[in-house]
């Protein structure tokens, strides 16, 4: 009943000033296919899709639907042609109900322009029933979990009879379980005749669901593959050279515990407990990775340690000294290195030079300061040595930090934080929006810092990163510590924990039910740890440090 449609992008070029975001890209989406666009952040995938969706005008090239050239002047045209898009950042009005959001732009009306939401509700119910979405048309969008919001986005496209659905990094905000559900939904949609363009940089998901994979690098198509291609193959296509996806790191040699958090609670201005009674500890020479879906208290936890949060209770002990209630300056002076989650907002001053950014927290100390004046020569000297050490690709130390690529900006932040002797190192989303090549480098630096005997805390929403770096993994859910489990715990167990199940429940659930979709390629070396028993250490560790 659904008319299928063939979509072809021919020689699409998009220029922003001097930046060539898309360079003669050719992609053909056959009817009823899941076509994946794989590429790193900034490779030009989203730009391409925004061109296809009529949000950007292409500089050159054409779009063909069923071999007929079309031109879209706005999203309205694209939707009329049967193209629907689910954006990475949801395009939903938070204070509207689901029905109002779905109706927007394609409203059913009664005479005189009055809204007929009844009609919209019926359509939502229909789609919701057909695909098992379980969406209440009258719920306020802001009250819905992210996964459900995403389904609302999909409904929006389906109500408009989308025959090609573009999903832009749809899994970035989901738990592994929600991701699996989404992949199921995608297969169902495909079964119903909807073609899907799936944009991602996550190899695992891409392999699980794609019919064909087109790899994009620096705005160009560099090749295509089918889902049978190996991850290493895909990764090297994506990056442009052979990459080592696994990090070689020696087992941790934990020493004495010097960092301890006890009953930490952070209250947000609206009264929510964003961090709720968390206790854990980190030993010297150990990496504790904090996992969890974005927005479960990770930001507040790190900010509380640094002294950026207002209403904090409990205790944070570093080398026996209390950090709660101290100023950020005091905390930094106590030897805390901090890489914030958003380098552009909190990590760097974009208009300052690289050299200045490298001394943002040291400018008032010798050798950079003498009395009330600063010593530019020392600042420059320091910059040049850091730039060399961290392989920062910058035209010069005087270049504005904001002009560097994401990976190089992150290296600047990391270089600054690791440039003084640390008693604790915290890195939040250390590789978000960073190219694969730099990821490798940054990860190695983090492990090197651990090996010098610094307690390290990593916060990441990327499960792959957590599993790679962690010596122990703490999972946060709604501000509470679900549990702390050893490295090597399986992805599925961690996923369940990220949805709020305790480690024991997660193990139990996992044994009952094996997901057919994914996660069945157990990481070698995991199974014994899982099979054994519901990790005896997890509960006690959650209570507080049990290292000796």
């Amino acid at each position, binding site marked *: 009943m659904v008319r299928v449609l063939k979509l072809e992008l021919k020689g699409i070029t998009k220029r922003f000033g001097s930046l060539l975001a898309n360079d003669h890209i050719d992609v053909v989406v056959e009817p009823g296919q899941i076509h994946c666009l794989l590429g790193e952040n900034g490779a030009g995938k989203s730009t391409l899709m925004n061109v296809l969706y009529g*949000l950007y005008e292409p500089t050159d090239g054409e779009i063909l639907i069923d071999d007929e050239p079309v031109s879209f002047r706005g999203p*309205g045209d694209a939707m009329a042609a049967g193209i629907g898009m689910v954006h990475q950042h949801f395009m939903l009005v938070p204070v*509207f109900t689901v029905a109002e959001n779905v109706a927007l*732009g394609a409203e059913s009306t009664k005479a005189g322009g009055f809204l007929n939401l009844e009609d919209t509700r019926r359509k939502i119910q229909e789609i919701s029933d057909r695909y098992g979405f379980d969406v209440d048309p009258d719920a306020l969008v802001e009250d*819905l979990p992210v996964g459900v919001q995403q389904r609302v986005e999909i409904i929006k496209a389906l109500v408009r009879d989308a025959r090609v659905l573009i999903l832009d990094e749809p899994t970035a905000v989901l738990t592994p379980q*929600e991701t699996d559900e989404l992949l199921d939904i995608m297969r169902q949609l495909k079964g119903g005749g909807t073609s899907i363009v799936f944009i991602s940089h996550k190899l695992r998901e891409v392999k699980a669901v794609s019919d064909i994979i087109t790899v994009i690098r620096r705005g160009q198509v560099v090749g295509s593959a089918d889902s049978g291609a190996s991850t290493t193959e895909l990764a090297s296509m994506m990056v442009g050279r052979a990459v080592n996806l696994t990090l070689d790191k020696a087992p941790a040699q934990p020493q004495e515990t010097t960092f301890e958090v006890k009953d930490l609670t952070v209250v947000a201005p609206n*009264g*929510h407990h964003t961090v709720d009674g968390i206790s854990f500890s980190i030993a010297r020479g150990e990496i504790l990775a904090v996992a969890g879906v974005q927005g479960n208290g990770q930001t507040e936890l790190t900010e509380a340690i640094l002294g950026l949060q207002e209403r904090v209770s409990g205790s944070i002990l570093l080398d026996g000294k209390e950090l709660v209630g101290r100023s950020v300056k005091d905390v930094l002076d106590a030897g805390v290195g901090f890489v914030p989650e958003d380098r552009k907002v909190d990590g760097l001053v974009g208009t300052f030079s690289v050299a200045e950014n490298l001394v943002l927290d040291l400018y008032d100390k010798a050798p950079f300061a003498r009395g009330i004046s600063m010593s530019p020569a020392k600042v420059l000297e320091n910059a040049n040595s850091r730039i060399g050490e961290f392989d920062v690709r910058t035209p010069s130390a005087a270049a504005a930090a904001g002009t560097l690529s994401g990976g190089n900006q992150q290296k600047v932040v990391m270089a600054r934080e690791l440039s003084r002797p640390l008693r604790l190192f915290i890195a939040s989303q250390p590789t978000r929006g960073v190219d694969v090549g730099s990821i490798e480098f940054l990860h190695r630096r983090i492990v090197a810092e651990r090996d010098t005997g610094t307690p390290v805390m990593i916060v990441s929403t990327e499960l792959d990163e957590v599993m790679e770096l962690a010596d122990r993994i703490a999972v946060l859910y709604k501000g509470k510590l679900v549990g702390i489990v050893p490295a090597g715990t399986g992805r599925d167990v961690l996923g369940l924990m990220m949805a*709020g199940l305790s480690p024991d429940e997660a193990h139990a659930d996992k044994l009952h039910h094996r997901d057919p979709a994914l996660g069945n390629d157990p990481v070698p070396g995991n199974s014994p740890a899982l099979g054994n028993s519901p990790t005896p250490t997890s509960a006690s560790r959650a209570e507080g440090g049990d290292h000796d």
Partner: protein
Amino acid sequence: MSTTATSPQPGKPQAGTPPRAEERQQATSEKPVTWKVPVLLSALGIVAFIFFGLMGPNQTARFGLSSSGDFFQLPALEVPGFLGGIVLSVIMLGLAGYAVYLKTKDQAAPRWLPIAFIVLFVAAFLIWVVGGARTPSISLAGLIAGSVTLAVPLVFGSLSGVLCERVGVVNIAIEGQLLGGAFTAAMVASMTRNPFIGLLAAAVAGAVVSMVLALFSIKYLVNQIIVGVVLNVLVSGVTGFLFSTVMQADKATFNSPGRLPIIDIPVLSGIPVLGPILFKQSLVGYLMYIAVIVVWIGLFKTKWGLRVRAVGEHPQAADTMGIRVNATRFWNVTLGGAIAGIGGSFFTLVAIDSFTKEISGGRGFIALAALIFGRWNPIGAFFAALLFGFADNLQSIVTIIGTPVPSQFMAMLPYLVTVLAVAGLVGRSRPPAASGIPYVKG
């Protein structure tokens, strides 16, 4: 309806999303209960008890409910000053106590409680003021009718603000729109000898002022607050200049607009209290009621309103749904200006029949306060404007009957009320999320 091959498997629901949804809902409903409301009410209650009760007047306050021309007459309301003050303030303390009791049980005070408290407070205040006056008698009907009259330009102004802010443009230029409307109405009505044409011209003038605001803030992305302030100054300067050079030179031709007639609906206008305010108004007065209702229905019940609100809340979402964000903004701001312009005509076509410099006297800014107090809702803004009109009118009446309270204190009243309201007594107000933020594609 094919059965879904991948419907959630048994065993999965407990682990998957459903519990999250529930918990999330719980989390949002458990809003923190603060001491703000109980403490504020208690303090006000004590103030009321001391001033309106213990230090209350000895005279009996007399409130006339009907005017002599009314269809049927109601007896005047007579309240002994001291006793009235004591009784009302004790009830207020009771309400405050109830709020404190609820807080100890960790419950928020119900929404009606602060509202009821304010009504009682105002009543006690009236008794106190009137009872302490030289002639302890006012006409309540006249007080209310006068409040509505004074509120007319405020209502139009705040509706203009609602339309602009709901679509994402901050309109500080309400004052300029009112003033431009007032001037143009006077000028055009005088020249054409027809106040109705003057009314239309006022709408056009308001729209023109708004178009400048829209052009600069939407197309050239100039800071909306700054454009608004500059527009106010500009309109004030231009109308002041034309007033002294043109209008003053030949009053008969340029500054004698004549008044819009009062349309008296027979019988209905004789209803005590309500009659005069609902059924004995000028065309502008009737238009006010119509505008409030039409804007409310338009915003919340129609396709147009859904799009307008979407543009003001999340313009990018609207854009991706094929709605032309900046065009929607431009025309809404223009419409808002036209409405404010009509409000401005009230000064020169209804209240008095000539223009003078700065005739709007800062009411555009009060309209802005009414809009915030009314929580960006046309009906809320209407009642907020009425409250300000009431305070304004009370001030002049109280001065006439000779009260010991200095009139400057009375003039402070509306602002005091605004501060208390915005401080959260009536709950958190939330502006449209994208208000004041220009929309640039990409």
